[in-house]
Structure formats: C-alpha cells, structure tokens
C-alpha cells in the first residue's frame, strides 16, 4: 500500500513533466531535448530559493527559469535556424553548467531541515494523505490551466504550428511566436516538475534530469495507449495518467525484483521504442502475410 501511494505521489509530480513533454512533442511536434536540462534547472532553482526560506516562491522561480530555457531553445531553432534536436542538446549541455552554478558549484544540495511545500502541507493535513492531496491538486491545476490555455487564440496558433506551419504563416501569424510560447510553456512545466521532485525528495542533484525526455515520452505513450489520441484536453489528462501508470508499473516491477533499480532508464527507452515501432512492425507483418498469400495464389 505504501508502495502504491508512493508511486501515485511520484507519478502525479512527474506528470507535470509529462505535460511539458506532451506540449513540445505532441502539440508542437518538436523533439525538444532541452527537457533533460530544464528538469535539473527546476530542481536547482527550487533548492536555492527554498534554502533561502521561500518554498512556495521556489516553484514559481523554477517555472520561470524553465520558461527562459525554453525560450533560448526556441531562439536557436527559429532565429538562428539550428536544427531542433541540436538546439535542445546545446541548451541542455549549457544548462549543466548553469545548474551547477545555481547550486554553488556543488553537484547536490540537501534541503533536510528546511521547510518545503510538503512539510507545510503536513502541518495542515498530517500523514501521507496531505502529500497525495497536494500532488493531486497541483497536477490537476496544471492540466486545467493548460487545457484552458490551448483553447485561446494563442493556444490554437500553437496547435496549428505543430500541425501545419505553412498554414499558420499564410494566416498572417508569425509561426516563430507560437514556437517560443510553446517551448516556454513546455519547459516551464518540466522545471516545475523538477522543483516538486526536489521538494519531495528533499534534495537536488545536478544529474537527475538525464533521461527525463524518454521518461516523459514513455508516460505520454502509455497515456495514449489507455485513452487513445484525441483532443488536447484529453491528451493532457492522458499524459498525466500515463505518468502515474508508469510509476506504478516500475514500482511493482522493482518490488518483485523483475530488474535492478539501475535498469530503469533502459526499460523506459525500451517502452518508447516498442510503442513507436509498433505501427511499422504491424505493417511489416501485414505485408509479409500479403506476400505469402500472393505467392500461394500464383503457385495455384
């Protein structure tokens, strides 16, 4: 039971990151690798601000820093015309130094003894119920906020940019602007998630962002397997549910010693590979079947 509650809490906190990945990968249709860097950035910012005594402000600071990182990636992609994947890698690499700088040159920072949003909520609602409630509220709030945001004119422009950029330009909208806003939103979510995890674990580690893109993508894909690919609002919800499902699956697989803890990233990568390759594997099988039937017929 503790295991289940723990993974639901983690799932809800990482869900915010999955929302960010959903925005960039699915809505904007951009492979944004900034995520690995902006997750740690959120952690670092949150740790720094929390240690100076402002745990709630820390979340906003992290979100803002993440948005800034997203804007830098957007700048490289649009104005400087650097390939989207490379843009993300460049910002991610640069952020490693930035993150170390924020944490005062140390690779990890402990929050033990300080107050976090979770220690604050435990003062109000004792026990692990408070933590779950807070995670749920934060996650739902983000889904609601983003769901509404994508119904606005700007939100529509972001969706259209991911779908058909040419058409956005011919509707007299500068397609660079939706990219900036979308990447800023996505990375703000990712950084916020980093900040929440930092508070949850009571420490910040500079390398904890590595592989986050893949985990986020795995969550999005699991969510889509459950809900299917539908409207944006359902998509956001399914990404969050996917994240919780992902954590639960991983927790139980670890519990029954299916694989060691260090295998996590490989498993995430495999989930994504399988999910992405499924359609072409299916098509391959179908083609082979057709070929077999065709040869059988010609033999007759």
């Amino acid at each position, binding site marked *: 039971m503790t295991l289940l509650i723990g993974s639901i809490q983690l799932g809800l906190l990482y869900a915010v990151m999955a929302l960010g990945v959903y925005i960039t990968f699915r809505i904007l249709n951009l492979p944004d690798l900034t995520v690995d860097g902006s997750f740690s950035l959120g952690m670092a910012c949150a740790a720094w601000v929390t240690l100076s005594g402002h745990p709630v402000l820390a979340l906003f600071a992290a979100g803002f820093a993440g948005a800034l990182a997203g804007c830098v990636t957007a700048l490289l992609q649009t104005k400087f015309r650097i390939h989207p994947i490379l843009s993300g890698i460049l910002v991610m690499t640069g952020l490693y130094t930035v993150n170390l700088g924020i944490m005062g040159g140390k690779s990890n920072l402990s929050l033990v003894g300080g107050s976090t949003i979770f220690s604050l909520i435990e003062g109000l609602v004792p026990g692990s119920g408070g933590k779950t409630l807070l995670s749920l509220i934060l996650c739902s709030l983000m889904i609601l906020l983003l769901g509404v945001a994508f*119904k*606005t*004119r700007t*939100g*529509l*422009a972001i*969706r*259209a940019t991911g*779908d*058909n950029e*040419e*058409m*956005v*330009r*011919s*509707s*007299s*909208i*500068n*397609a660079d602007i939706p990219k900036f806003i979308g990447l800023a939103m996505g990375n703000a979510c990712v950084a916020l998630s980093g900040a929440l995890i930092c508070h949850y674990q009571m420490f910040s580690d500079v390398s904890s962002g590595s592989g986050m893109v893949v985990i986020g993508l795995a969550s999005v894909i699991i969510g889509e397997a459950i809900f299917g690919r539908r409207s944006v609002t359902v998509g956001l919800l399914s990404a969050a549910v996917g994240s919780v499902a992902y954590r639960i699956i991983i927790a139980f697989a670890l519990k029954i010693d299916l694989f060691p803890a260090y295998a996590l990233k490989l498993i995430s990568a495999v989930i994504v590979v399988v999910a992405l390759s499924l359609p072409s594997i299916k098509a391959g099988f179908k083609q082979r079947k057709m070929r077999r039937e065709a040869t059988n017929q010609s033999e007759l």
Partner: protein
Amino acid sequence: MLELIKISKTFNPGTVNEKRALNKVSLHLDPGDFVTIIGSNGAGKSTLFNAICGSFYIDSGSILLGKRNITAMPDYKRAYDIGRLMQDPMKGTAPSMTIEENLALAYTRKASRSLFALNKTDSEYFRELLASLDLGLEDRMKTKVGNLSGGQRQAVTLLMCTIAEPKLLLLDEHTAALDPATQQKILKITMDIVSEARITTMMITHDIKTALLLGNRTIMMDEGEIILDIKGEERKGMTVEELLTYYSKERKKQLLDDRILLA
C-alpha cells in the same frame, strides 16, 4: 492594386544549376481584375506567386500591393492581405484540427479580439460560410479536416484564404489535383466567392480553354518573362489554337506540355 516593377530572381547564382526564374517581370493589376496565367512547366508562374507572397526575397525590382511597398516584407505579414491556394489540398489546412478550428485560425487576423478561439458569433459566421459551399460541411464543423476528401479540404482552404477579405487572391492550379466533377465544383465556388467580394485574383491553370473563359485578362509566361498579355476584345476573339500558334511562333518551340495537350 498589384504593381510589379521589373522583378528578377535567379536561383543558385554562379553555379551550374543557375536558373533565371524571373526576368524583369512587370505587371499592373487593377482592383477587381481576374487574371489567368498560362505557360509550360518551369515558365516561372509559381515562382511569380512565390515572389508576391514572399516565400523568398527577389533580387531586384519592387512589389507594391495597394499603396504599400511590400518588397522587403516577411511572408507572414504579406499574408494579411494575400490569400494563396496551392495545388496540393493537404497544404492549406491543419489536418488534426477541426474545420471550425481551422477557420478560426485563418480568421484570427480579422476577428474581433477575444481570449478564446471558438466563440458563438464566429461559429455562426463560419456556419454561414460553410453552408454557402453547399457541400454539407456546415453540419460537420467538429470534424477533423484530415478526415475530409481532397475536394472538401480545398473548399475549406478556399474559405480560409478569403475569410479575411484579402486584397489579392493567388490560385496556383488549385483544382489540378481533383477529379473533373470536383474541379468544376471548386471552380464554381471560387468564382462565386471572388465575384461577390470583388477580390483581385490571379489564377494559374494548365487548361487554356478555362484560362480564356474565366476572368477578364490572360497572361502567358515563358522562361521567366510575360510573353503575352491580352484582355478585352482581343482576348474575346482568341482561340486555343491561336494561342498555341502564337507561342510556337514567338518562342520558336512547341508548347509541348502533355498536360496542355490533354486539356
């Protein structure tokens, strides 16, 4: 309305692939003009459209739309006053968005300011527009555009191009990818919209008969130049055969284009 003054464009200058796509093209359009453009493949028809839309910047010359010089204006800013329809029905719409959402996006530039993209007033307007197409699309406003047929998509794109009342409409063989019956339908819708709003229009077509039939002016392009520009009585008396003869006499070659021969 539109004024092209000696515009030139050379692709890949200084290389073996150097291609002079537009050679000092000058053209003046009056408001309400409907110009049909003919010419063989590679004559520079689409390049001319690209130059007007700002898909690239021209090497020399200037482009004026209304009273404004738009020569150095980026494409998305020009799009405020220019609607363009491509041959490929897939290009003008966002497939994973609904018909309503597509129209809302195209309408953004002229719609009254509102936070949400979809609202009642606009939806009513979109429904009216769709109903005027007579394709039954007004009852499918929540359908994703990706689920529509090519002809339906092209009709929606046509609405999107004209919804913001552009000063200039560019039609780049916009019916060529459709079957003959749908072609006629889209062409009729086009003429209805254009004549009602009196939009200045340029239409590229490979069908010379249509080119002479529709609009009030026809120009013929070859090797990046306008080689024939007819209107009024001269155009009325022109036949397809005469045009072809003119072309071969003028350019000392046949207007041998399989698509034209078929037409």
